[in-house]
Each structure stands twice: as C-alpha cells, then as structure tokens.
C-alpha cells in the first residue's frame, strides 16, 4: 500500500533533529491545515482534467472536454493571480498528466483549495463534487488511496462556500459526493467542479460548457468565492 506524509509539523517524532527540520519546514511554508490554520501564502491548485491522449468527453459543440477544462483553468488562473493568490496548475497545455501525478502536484503545493475542473454535455449548470470518502482525523501518515479522508470536512466547507457564491450569481448548482481518483489522493480542501450546459426554464441549452461568456462568468464567481474563502481562512 502506498502512503503519503501529511505536512503537519507538530506531530511527535522521536528524533529531535527530524522534529526541528519538520518545524522549520512548517514555519517556512505554513499554508493550511484541516483545522483552517492561518495561511501566509494562499495557494490554489487548478487541475484541468484530462489532456493529451485522454480527451475526456465530447461536448455538443464538438469540442473535447480536455480543451474546455484547460480554457476554464487558464481563465481562472488569471483571475486568481490578479486577486493576489498563488496559483499552481497541473497542466498548461494539451499534455497527458497521470491522475496520481495531479494529486502529487496538489499535495506538494500545500494548497488552501484544490479544484479539479471538468466539463460535460449532460445535465445543467454547475456540478460540485466532494469525495465520498468517510471523514477521518488527519494523521502524519495516511494511505495514498484515501488521503482526502482527513480533509473531507474542509472540502465540504469549501463546497458550501462555492455553492453559496454560485447560487447568488444565479447558477443552477448540484452538490454531490463521488469517488474520483486524483481528488481522493489530495491532502487539501479538494473539489471536482463540472461545468454543464446552461439551460433555460424549458430545458433547452442556452450556453454550452465551452461558451466563452459562460466560462468567464463562472471563473469570475469562483475567483470571488475563493477570495472570500481566503478571508475566512485568515479569521482567527
């Protein structure tokens, strides 16, 4: 079984030298914890799903999912950077990235929020998914496959924050739980956000998931919501 070390620097370690090193690392790169400790550097990980050989689904417009998610990631990255956040992306171009590599990138970034971006032609509005793993107390070492379990509470809180912001902006939002390789391996408040077509009251599509205006509206709302999440994280 693969294990992952959670970067929490205050666990009891027999060796004083190791403790000192961990403490130093913890102070230097203090980010966030499941308890919402104050972060000095607010890092957001954007994971544009699929890419390279993995095209993902095909949208009604003819575009493939990997292109739509990358476009949304690029938009959101700019907006978050403009708001003073540090943004780490799992891919910047049409390249294949293994789901476990995506989680590795997110875990090394010690992020305050990790968003896996998806797009679909099914359903309507925005689908927000939290891992279906049962919540656990975060420990020093956690199994790789269920690393997200220690962060479920914070992930649900993040989902709530984004849901509120999206509803306020008039989006149709569906909150669900799912099992998704990549997100389940992340040691940060992590969500999968799936952008589905915008539909009118009669169910007819008014904007596809890759529509530029629709994506811009969504990216703006997510950026505003993450700013509020950042302020909340800084509250004592």
């Amino acid at each position, binding site marked *: 079984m693969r294990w992952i070390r959670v970067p929490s620097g205050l666990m009891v370690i027999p060796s004083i030298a190791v403790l000192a090193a961990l403490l130093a690392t913890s102070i230097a790169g203090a980010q966030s914890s499941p308890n919402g400790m104050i972060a000095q550097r607010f890092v957001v990980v954007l994971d544009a799903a699929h890419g390279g050989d993995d095209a993902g689904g095909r949208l009604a417009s003819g575009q493939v999912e990997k292109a739509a998610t990358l476009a949304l990631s690029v938009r959101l990255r700019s907006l978050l950077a403009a708001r003073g956040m540090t943004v780490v992306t799992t891919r910047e171009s049409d390249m294949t990235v293994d789901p476990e590599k995506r989680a590795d990138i997110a875990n090394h970034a010690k992020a305050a929020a990790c968003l896996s971006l998806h797009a679909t032609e099914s359903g*309507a509005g925005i*689908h927000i998914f939290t891992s279906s793993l049962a919540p656990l107390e975060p420990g020093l070492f956690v199994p790789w496959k269920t690393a997200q379990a220690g962060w479920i509470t914070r992930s649900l809180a993040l989902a709530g924050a984004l849901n509120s912001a999206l509803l306020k902006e008039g989006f149709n939002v569906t*909150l669900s739980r799912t099992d998704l390789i990549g997100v389940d391996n992340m040691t940060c408040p992590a969500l999968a956000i799936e952008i589905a077509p915008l539909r009118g009251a009669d169910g007819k599509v008014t904007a596809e998931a890759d529509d530029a205006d629709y994506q811009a509206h969504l990216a703006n709302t997510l950026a505003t919501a993450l700013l509020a999440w950042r302020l909340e994280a800084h509250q004592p």
Partner: protein
Amino acid sequence: MIPRYQKILFGVLLVGALAMAGVLWHLRQRAHERLLEGQDSAPTRAPEVAPTEQAMLLVANDADGSLLTQARSLPLPADPGARARVILGNLLDVYAAPDAAHPVAGGASGIAQVFLMPAAGGKSGSGDELAVVNLTSNFVASHPSGLETETLTVLSICGTLHANLPQVTQVRFLVDGQQRPNLAGHADLTRTYLTTDAAPVAGGSSQ
C-alpha cells in the same frame, strides 16, 4: 494480331480473377454469419410466464442529480441473479427511452450478466452479498461522458440492486467480463461500491 498463347493466358487470368472474387464473396458471407451468431442472443427480459411482482427502480435525473424511486410491476424469475438482470435491464430501458431524464443509449442489452456471491468483509452469518454487474462494451461506449451522469448511472444501479435484493450490500462492475478503469472517463469502476452510497431522495412514482 494477338498471339494465341496470349489469348489463352488472358482467358485463364480472367477465370482466375472471377473465381477469386467468388471465393472472397463467399468468405465475406460466412464471416458475416459468424458475427451474427456471435451476438448475445440470451433473453434480456424475463419470460412472461413468470409471476408479476413489484420491483423498485432508483431512476436518476440529470437535471438535479437526484435518484427517484419508481415502482414497476414486472414478471421476475426466481433465481436472484436472473432477477437482478431483469430489474437492471428494466432500469436501463428507462434510460434508453426518448424522453429520459438521464439519457443513456443501449437499454436492457447493456447488462450482460449479474453474479451474486458472498460479500468479502461482511459480518459472518449476515448473508451480505456482492453483486458483480457485467456491462457490455456497447453500453459503456455509448454512455455519455461526465462526472455527474456516470456517477448517477453507477449509484442508480447500486441503489436499485439493494432496493430489490436487500442482501446485496456491495457492487462491482465489469465490462465484457474484464475490469475497466472507468465508465466513460470519470466514474471509477475498479472499486467496490457500497449500496449505502446510493440513497434515493424523497418522492417517487409507480407504473
């Protein structure tokens, strides 16, 4: 003036070409017949002689991501595995209907088999069972790609199995008898699903 031997050679080549065309046509016909014979001809519906019973379907709705309970009167066989296949086939028929709230093509033929076996890790003597649902590759290939739609398909299958066979507490998925990483790019098919993950929302209808 064309020499006689060239005329004979031309004639032989022409006859040879025609004969080979005939053989090719014959082989093509045989291959086509073999393909048709290879298709699954097993019945996907229970025989009408079976007694009609009430079955509960957990039907997914893409619009709000919900699972709604629907009661159906169906002729169901006595064997639990065959029973599960008929019920799941009926569920997929709902999804294949033109006005489906969770459209997925394929219908009942998307379920190849359902196997029931004792669940690993269950309480001893509890009678908990693991259902192995063998989907067809045609069904998987025609399934729309998306986190929500794939999750709903998986959960509605798990929930429907548990609603009709309460002893089924775990579900695994195969595609044409083989393990596959995901349904259509998202929903993980390598894990064992717990039927408790699939809870219907309030409401429902009967037909």
